[in-house]
């Protein structure tokens, strides 16, 4: 039970951390100033969520580690973030299509997690719901705009979807930690979200004229800390300063 709660919280924290790190790569490189600010703000919200979750995970682990230790002193085989979060940003269309898939899931997920019997998780979730509402409106509006813009914007959006879709199945994967915690009223039953998510995402794709690519299989691995080739590079960049100066204070 205790281990399951640690594993579960760590997985949610890692997913938020790596997504925020990826999105923050756009800081200073956004397509125009307002978008640069928007995506930086969104990344910041998600970093904040990661901090809350990793802080709680560290507490549940009970080995005296802090959220910073978890973020900066683990290697890729100890990270449990969803594979979709570590995929390269690509162009803005790809970043937005990935974000819309995640925002749609996250709003459903955190709305349910806000009802968790674990009050810390419920608190972090209820806070996040308000923020994700804004994130989703932002990413959905860009998907519709790109999908109905020019031939170029549409083809880039479709290309982005083709590249990212195989990573969407993992959103709904559950293991024994989920099942243990669902029994306790702590975790969210992901099966219960799937239909709503599919409806909403299909409605969005229709508005953007997108076709869901045919995939032979959905990518998996993050539940066992098996990652694509991209995570190592993200960690190398994110962790280099704390690892170079492990006791630095400022």
């Amino acid at each position, binding site marked *: 039970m205790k281990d399951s709660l640690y594993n579960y919280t760590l997985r949610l924290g890692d997913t938020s951390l790596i997504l925020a790190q990826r999105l923050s790569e756009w800081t200073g490189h956004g397509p125009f100033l307002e978008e640069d*600010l928007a995506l930086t*703000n969104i990344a910041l919200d998600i*970093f904040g969520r990661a901090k809350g979750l990793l802080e709680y995970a560290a507490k549940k682990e009970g080995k005296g580690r802090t959220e910073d230790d978890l973020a900066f002193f683990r290697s890729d085989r100890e990270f449990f973030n969803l594979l979709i979060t570590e995929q390269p940003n690509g162009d803005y269309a790809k970043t937005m299509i990935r974000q819309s898939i995640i925002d749609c899931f996250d709003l459903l997920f955190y709305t349910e997690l806000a009802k968790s019997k674990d009050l810390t998780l419920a608190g972090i979730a209820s*806070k996040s719901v308000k923020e994700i509402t804004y994130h989703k*409106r*932002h990413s959905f509006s860009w998907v519709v705009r790109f999908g109905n813009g020019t031939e170029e914007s549409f083809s880039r959006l479709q290309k982005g979807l083709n590249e990212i879709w195989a990573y969407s199945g993992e959103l709904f994967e559950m293991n024994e930690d989920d099942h243990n915690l669902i029994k306790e009223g702590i975790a969210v039953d992901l099966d219960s979200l799937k239909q709503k998510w599919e409806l909403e995402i299909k409605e969005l794709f229709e508005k953007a004229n997108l076709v869901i690519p045919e995939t032979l299989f959905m990518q998996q691995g993050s539940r066992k800390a098996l990652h694509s080739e991209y995570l190592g590079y993200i960690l190398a960049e994110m962790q280099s300063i704390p690892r170079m100066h492990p006791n630095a204070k400022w």
Partner: protein
Amino acid sequence: MHTKEEVFALLSEIPDPEIPVISIVELGVIREILIEGTHIEVFITPTYSGCPAMKQMEDDVRKKLSENGFNEIKSTIIYSPAWTTDWLSEEAKLKLQNYGIAPPEETTSDKSFLTNSKKNITCPRCKNKNTVMISQFGSTACKALYQCKECLEAFDYFKCI
């Protein structure tokens, strides 16, 4: 020894690090204060999960309290109930407006912010309602960016959450 009310009054002297015209108490982020002898615990909630001003607020609270005779100071971050713009007092909203930031115009209970069907925001400078949203995400996480079509000034709007 200080009472809870006195401590709230003390903390009311601390300006918000990013919007110095209102205090952190007016902002509504100080949720509870527990005092036992010289020991004090302050419960703070973030406006947004990633609000970068949190650390500054905690440091300011500690400084203010230690200057006023508290030796054992604990600050605890809480997430529930989640901060809402409904906690901004009318007085605080007026201060925001005079500072050039349009205050939130709805309460979260009317839910119009969810559907994005909000009425036009009033320009804090010329009070015109002929304004347009430039970006949902402004200079800080808690603000959106608007422009007034009459005086042409861009201004921040305190988002309703």
